[in-house]
């Protein structure tokens, strides 16, 4: 592992979390619809973000810690 990987891998982790957040936000909470209330949108955003972080936390720690 050299140079550029130290930049790419964290960026990639951010991308994975964002994509998962988006998928949960739209696919599970369905908060992207126009009809959804602002509160619902905000709560769903936080919840999906948290879930995405949790999921990838376990994936990454499985990978790097070898649980």
């Amino acid at each position, binding site marked *: 592992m*050299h140079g550029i990987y130290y930049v790419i891998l964290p960026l990639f982790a951010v991308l994975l979390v964002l994509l998962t957040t988006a998928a949960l936000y739209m696919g599970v909470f369905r908060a992207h619809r126009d009809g959804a209330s602002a509160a619902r949108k905000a709560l769903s955003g936080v919840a999906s973000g948290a879930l995405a972080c949790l999921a990838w936390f376990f994936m990454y*720690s499985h990978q*790097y*810690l*070898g649980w």
Partner: protein
Amino acid sequence: MQHALRLLAITLAVLFALPGAGWAATDPHGLSPSADMTFLPHLAGLRNKTYKNQYGQKKSLSEAIVLRGSEIKDGAATVQPGGLFYLSETSHDARPLMRDPFLVLGEHACLVDLKTAMREYRDVALNKGDRAPLGDSGYRLWFDYSTDHYEVPYAEFAVISPSGGFPLEFPIASEFPKREEVRDIHLEEGLNPQLEKFYLDNTYYFGASRYVASKVGFDDAEFSSIAFPEITEATFSLQRPVILEVRQEDYRFYLNKRIYAFRRPDGFLIRVTNFTGGQVLAEKLVKPVTAQEYKTRPDQLDKYHLTIPELDMRVEIVMDPAFLKDSDFVPWSTGKAHGYSSGYFSFVVYRDLVTVKNGQPWPLDKRYNVVLEPNLKTGMLQRLVLENNEPVTFDKDHDAYAGPVKYSDVWNRTAFKVVVKDLDGDVARNIYVRDYYGMRTDNMVMWPNEGKADIDFFLGSSPVLEPIIERSFLTRLADSSYGTVVEESRFSSYPKVISDASFYEPDHTAPFVPRLGGLMRKVSRNRNNERLLSAEAVVIRGSYVDYRNGRIVIPPAGLCYTSRNARNIRTLAGESFFLLGRRAYLTTFSSGTFVRKDFDLDFWKNQPMGDGNLMYWQDELLGERNKALRYTGETYLDDRPVASLSLMKYSGNRWGAHFYLAQGFDKEKEAGDRYFMPDLFSEGATYIQPEYIGSNYVKIREFGTPSLQSISYTYNKPKSLALGAGESAGLGTFTLRCDAVDPQAGTLNLALLDKSGAVVGSKTVGPLDDAARRLLPQHMETARRMQFKVGAVMAELDVKHPFKDGKANLWLYTGIQELERDTPFEFDPRFMVRPDVCGHCYQLNEVLLDNPEPIVLDREHPVFEGPKNAQGEPLFRIVIDSFDGEMVQAWHIETGEKDELQRTDNLAFRPRNNVDVLVGVNGTIEGFLRLSMLPRLGFMDHWRVGSRAPHEKLSGSVNTGGSAHIRR
């Protein structure tokens, strides 16, 4: 051709196995599987991992399944009790109070408790080659080989555990000056004359073990005592412990219980109660655990824990290291944990406790017995073995045998299943093992059409394989049934570049070519009719692809020609070796003792790059290009540092075993020390008197080791001649005249006359009396007295049968040439001469020729010629056939000329980023192969089936593939 080679390999393997043929039906403990057993490095259910303990110390864990001593007869295969076993091993050891990780049938467990004792066997006698059982313990004592100094015997032994593993072979003798006498040596710094005494003790101390020899002969030996540790009981916790911060004078909830801690002057009173605190379940005064090792002593251990078996809990109190730094509980690890940042105490509560007893059945499966093997140095657990306690038979109706039942979080199930199918008369054609994931190995019969005459195998990459196959690994690696094994190397933007390859070993993935026409390997006999195996080899080390400039570079000392005999090469016995394909006879040698005083030796922990990439500036050189001393490993025995030092030869091999040194132990039992290690090292003529042994460096008061300055040799076979007083004979262009012979005094007077009759030189050869015989043949001064050398000719007294009928028996040498250390080779000044010495005895050990300047190979210069002989013919040529600037795609080495050109297979059959290679077999090559045995054997299987090797090398504790990680 392929079949012939295969047959040859099998025959060799069988021959190798012959001494053990009688063992098949006997107790298999401490014995190896058959020499042709199958080794497969990988099965998913066998884990190979590195975990850390609570102090951040890394432990490499590995598992294996082994079957040994099997027999096939009339369509049925039988395995004796102890023949089929599962083995889990940790690097170094696992001890209580450390949360040391351990694998138990695939589960990550912690060792929490041990009960230990000592075993002693008195008056053990055995013959050379024997593996004598020590009582019914399953241990064996192995007499490997014997040799001599001044014709007095010394020998190598090993104590073999039931699994077949042993930590090292130790040299021992009964008739030489003892270790302590080294203290009387006082030499000047620099080159000194040869030591007359040869130091080798009759007692070998190895931490908790002690072996005392009473008589060591050439063919038999007796030990008055063999003492080593034993583990009677071990307790594992199959879960991660629960960690709760201690609240003084208060409690913490642990599930449905409370754990109280009350401060007392000498620890904490721990009280475990029910949920409400109304009922006291257990109570004990417990001292906090820290890293001091004496706490694991049997008389101390009990003070550090509260164990309640009926509640399945064990409570310890630890002082937290700084934020559990370096533990498996946090992903980042930045330093070595030993410091504690604060006084926080935590309960460590272990649950899912399993206690197993040595020699007793495994709790989940009565068909298997538990064997607990200690580290013979520390007495702590190194291996857990589960072996069958009843004979196992495979036949038409029983083609599978289940392994022990494993503990599991999901369901306790069989850990593996050995399947033997297609038993056909005296061979099996299909053997495989299925693990608890349901995944199976490839067929372990490599040539199913021919079948296999036993069902022995070793499955898994455990370092214990190395001692187990000690006697057959060379045959295995030299097996050419699959062609020349070439491991692909990965391209690297940052290739390992070194400016000088002295003291380096070749890349661990360097291809090994056991045979190449033109490189000699032959047996000869000396005057005493002893068998001598002489062999030549070629080694390339430290080479790399300089991809920025599109070239291949072999650094100085990178291209080595080496010639060696199976033991050191002695004068006065007409011993010969090969030099560039021709037999050369050793005539004289000049060597001395190189001494260094008052120097510091850094531990290799301090690696400047921080990436495990060792820099060799921590080597301490002992004489110019003679030997290098390294501090390669450090352990503690009851918190006293034990240094393991390595003496490296110029070729990159280690001389002998590690030297273990520690200070301050008392060998008297009354002192209460569990361990003893000597604070002096002596083996033959190499000795160390340390001033201070620390965990970080060793300060050495005096170190001495032999150094060889030059040798002389001749290609002409010496002639024998009996010469009486007044007689003369031709010697080259001269005339040799004998003036007087005195058999009583053991002397004779010789004179050398040239053509004109003028005396060119004269000498009184001898005296060959008892005093001289006590120092022959190794002592240089004494040996020289038996020789009369003038220029290129020499006459030598036959020291075995010096006089007969008033005549002296002489050996005449002509055409003598000199090889002086660090001078250009006579016939090819592109190469330098580096004769290497035996560290025991000052004799010639190895002749090396290497390049003082880097060798560059590229598109314009794809060929390099090796060292040339007197006729100007190179011994071999390095030929790069295809190189794309980054990876070598095809290259080979060839010998001979047009009509009889011999060439190796393509040594980059899979692309490689270096041209390191091992060609031929001699001691040097064997040493290199031994260092990379496990990854090499592991890769052979990938090669066999055409698969790619895994990206990450297995983390066996001995060899991990990259040579930088290996302790040498």
